[in-house]
Every structure is written in structure tokens, then in C-alpha cells.
């Protein structure tokens, strides 16, 4: 497992994307477009965590990203301690439901981009699990 911990600041997202992208390239048999899908989904999850910390009055607190590579899949978990998932703040909707809103596309995007997405309330925050399955298992 590879664990990244970074301050909840948007200027770290590029680094997180680069790391997850590199690991995914070397992991299961994913084509480059699907690697990019996973990278985008992880970036959205991290951006939500950063927003959540800001809303919770803890800007710059730690976001944790765990990447687990198996033979036939890659699972990325994004964990924050920002007080919990607020349904009213980010309700999953169809990706095109609000095309003119500048935020809020994140959750539906994550759902569409990955093979599995799970959002769980943890003790003090939220954990988002994003899974991509390798080409071998999809056949």
C-alpha cells in the first residue's frame, strides 16, 4: 500500500494526481484513458475533502490518500477528518442535472468514472473509496 498525507490545499492536488497516475500505470492492466478516469475521480474526492475541511473551519488539515494495488484492481481511499459527509452539501445527482453550477459535479463524476465508488462516514469525517478493475477481470 502507498499512503500519501498532504495538507488540505488545492496546490497539492497536482502532486497527488501525478503519484496516483504513476502507480495506476504500473498496477493492474488499465488502459491509459481509465488511468486518467481514476486520477480525475481521486482529484475530485481530494477537492471535496479540501472543501469539507474549509467548511469545517480546519483549512490545511491533513488529507490521507491510500492506494492499494492488487493483481487485478486498484483501490484508492481518500480520507478526511472534517466532521462528516453532509448530504445537504454534496448530494449525488445526475452529472448533467446542474450543468451551470461551478461545483457539485464531483460526486456524480466519481461515480461514473470508476468501477466502484463508496462514500462512508467515519468517526470524525468521510472516507471515499474508488476502485478500478483491471482488463483481465473485466473480460
Amino acid at each position, binding site marked *: 500500500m502507498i499512503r500519501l498525507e498532504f495538507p488540505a490545499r488545492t496546490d497539492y492536488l497536482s502532486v497527488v494526481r501525478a503519484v496516483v497516475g504513476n502507480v495506476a500505470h504500473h498496477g493492474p492492466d488499465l488502459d491509459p484513458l481509465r488511468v486518467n478516469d481514476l486520477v480525475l475521480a481521486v*482529484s475530485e474526492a481530494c477537492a471535496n475533502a479540501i472543501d469539507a475541511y474549509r467548511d469545517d473551519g480546519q483549512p490545511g488539515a491533513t488529507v490521507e490518500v491510500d492506494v492499494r494495488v492488487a493483481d487485478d484492481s486498484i483501490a484508492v481511499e481518500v480520507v478526511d477528518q472534517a466532521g462528516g459527509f453532509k448530504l445537504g452539501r454534496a448530494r449525488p445527482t445526475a452529472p448533467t442535472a446542474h450543468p451551470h453550477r461551478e461545483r457539485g459535479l464531483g460526486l456524480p463524476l466519481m461515480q461514473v468514472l470508476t468501477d466502484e465508488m463508496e462514500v462512508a462516514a467515519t468517526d470524525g469525517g468521510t472516507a471515499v473509496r474508488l476502485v478500478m478493475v483491471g482488463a483481465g477481470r473485466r473480460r
Partner: protein
Amino acid sequence: VVDLGVEVSKQDGTAVLTVTGEIDIATAPRLREQVVTLVGQGETRIVVDMEGVDFIDSTGLGALVGALKRVRTQGGELAIVCTRPRLLKVFEITGLVRVFEIHETLGAAVAATSRGTA
């Protein structure tokens, strides 16, 4: 580390924004500001050339939608140049392919912003 380049040029009366790098929650405000400035200067035909863009997230898409609304409110038009599969896929899954004029060449995009507004 996050890098976004936005260069402005002019072609056949259309303002061309050549964007390079990553458009995400950190950098999208710069793109938004550039569009606000251009529209403020009276530019209502805008092309966003994304051939040098490596990544776009939902905030970046939001900035493009905001730019489109802004120019249309002024009676103008905005078109995008994009052939990169990873970006086109994001436009497709969000349904934004039906919202934007997306072209394969700069020439076609510039022509699209001139149609009906000349």
C-alpha cells in the same frame, strides 16, 4: 507544481485563449479571470484552445461553462478546440459535448464563433 498557462491572441476578430497545463480547482480561477477581463474589454467571440491541456476537473468544466454563459449574455459565442481523448471523454460523460461547440482545429473554432454574429 500546478501549472496553467493562458495566452491571448487574436484571429479574424476572435480572441483565442491558448491554455496549457492543468485546469483544476487551484488554477481554474485564472482562466475565469482571463475570460472576465476579455469580455470586459468587449471581446464576445472567444475560442479556448485546449490542445495543450493535460487535465481538467469539474471546477475547470465549471469555469468553461461560466465563460460560455458570460459571452452568450453579451450576444457572443465561445468555441473550444480539443482533440485529446482524455478530455473529450470528460466532456462526453458530463453531457457538456452538447453544451459546447467543440472543434478539431483552431480555424473551425474561430469560424464557429463568427457564424451569425458577423
